[in-house]
């Protein structure tokens, strides 16, 4: 059973739209971005299992088994 990481905009370059990772109990968003070679400062928004918040705080949240992350670089519009 794994977790799903949805990537957007420039984060897709060289990684694809969705990356799957094995679930390890206690794993956090920080573990995920380390695995993907993304640094916290490159992230503008992150959602962990449907919950969003400040990036630094969200990176410490434990991901659920079968959980998912959505990670965005700086994007905007209107």
């Amino acid at each position: 059973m794994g977790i799903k990481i949805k990537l957007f905009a420039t984060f897709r370059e060289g990684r694809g739209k969705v990356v799957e990772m094995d679930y390890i109990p206690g794993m956090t968003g920080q573990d995920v971005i380390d695995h993907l070679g993304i640094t916290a400062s490159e992230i503008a928004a992150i959602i962990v299992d449907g919950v969003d918040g400040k990036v630094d705080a969200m990176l410490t949240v434990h991901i659920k088994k079968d959980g998912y992350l959505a990670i965005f670089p700086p994007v905007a519009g209107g």
Partner: protein
Amino acid sequence: MFGYMGKILRINLTTGVITKEDLDFELAKKFIGGRGLGTKIFSDEVDPKVDPFASENKIIFINGPLTGTATPTGGRYMVVTKSPLTGTIASSNSGGEWGAYLKYAGYDAVIVEGKANLPVYINIENDKVEILPALDIWGKYTSITSAMLKEKHPDSKVLTIGPAGEKLSQMAAIMNENDRTAGRSGVGAVMGSKNLKAITVSGNQKPVIAKPDGLKAVTKECRSLIKENGVTGEGLPTYGTAVLVNIINEHGVYPVNNFQTGGDPNAEAVSGETLTEKYLLKRNPCHHCPIGCGRWVKSEKHPDGIGGPEYETLWVFAGDLGINDMEIVIDANFWCNELGIDTISAGATLAAAMELYQRGYITDEMLDDDVILKFGNADSVIHWLKKMGNREGFGDMLARGSYRLADFYGVPEYSMSVKKQDLPAYDPRGIQGMGLQYATSNRGGCHVRGYLISPEILGLPEKLDRFELAGKPTWVKIFQDLTAVIDSSGLCLFTSFALGAQQYADMLNETLGTDWSAEELLLAGERIWNLEKLFNLEAGILPEEDTLPPRFLEEEMPDGPTKGWVHKLDEMLPLYYAERGWDEDGIPTEERLIALGLL
């Protein structure tokens, strides 16, 4: 006089009299220009109770002091009038080149009054200003109109309305350079009501800059801030505003089927990433814009490409209608431009009609057994758009906008609008500050009066808890005031992702020779906001119209990351009024108006 051209053109279409007046520099400084100065001139000259389609209503095309300078994005103009959609003050902004060309012709603003007997257009070439017959272009689509006028005036930029404006649709837009739009609040219909089809403009003058070296240095600094910023240097240039589809959808605030739900599992099909990968031909920037969010895209029907679509357009012709087809979105964008209609209101009215059909208020018989207006029915979109723009059959009902349509059936609650203007692409139940902004916006439902999406979703300049109420009234006020400043300066709002109030003050000071501090500039923004509010109150807009459709206040979001939430407007509105120094009904107090120099 520095920065401004110092001249205002006044054209009376009833009498044919054209006058050139001096700009009052002190007044200009107090209200900056563009939206602020335009509103000041308009509210001094026009009775707020005027019927928007009466000849006594005026329409002002006005630049900011930075329009036509070398500042980044310095090419924008504002259209100020009384809105036939909302009954409020309307100020509708557009990019492209037209505004800069008006400045090069030697004018800060054109005030059009009265009503022509027959269709006319206005041609401005420096000092030469003429009212010319427009019988040959009346009834024509906007791109044909532009091409015909370009043949007559090859050096000019063309601003025009389409059939929707001629036929007084309350959602009619004004188009310039074919794909740039003063889109909202029905400003195109005011042109139509005056029998004014178009304005062509050209010239070879330049504004005199107070401190040219200083402006050069500040412009350089601002350009590098824009380039280094992740949003303005990479996100927007690469993907355009369409990049928002996925992030808004993932937060569960991407409205689907007329805001009945807040997420679409198939939104990727109309995302910025898909648009870039499969449809983008090139970027399509406005005047002096280093960001270049504008797109030039192809589709099967438009192999040579068209300008667009923006995020709002993608959403409204996809998620909001329960259809996820990029080909349809691009074609809908094309037809909105040709007909001269606001994409947001056009799509939102189709969405409201589809919900009215879903609930049995609109029946097949009412549609004369024409194509069914049903969520997910891809065939309906272009079919009804054309009928809406041309006011044919049931399209005549649609051309009035979602509020008037739903109200006709006795159920205005199915119009997702504020002050009769359709809401843009963000469900307020999951973005509490944005909902407060919608409810209090001086031109009705709108995202570009204070883009709270930045802090609440995008983490810019810092991430706020989108469900939290505390502090949001303060954020809303600051965003609204700063937006009024940018709209009045002649720059694009998107610069604010990289620049702050100090940079705007620096650019204005070097251009005008003023010594504005960032705080004084924000105070000018607040002055403009209060002036608009005063106009609306005198126009008869009631305090209780500072609200949201009942769906957001009463129906919990059914699913997704915003599940269970309603908008808590009642808890924030009194705090917002207090923050503004207004009384509990949302009326500006004498004390505040004196402090702002409005009394």
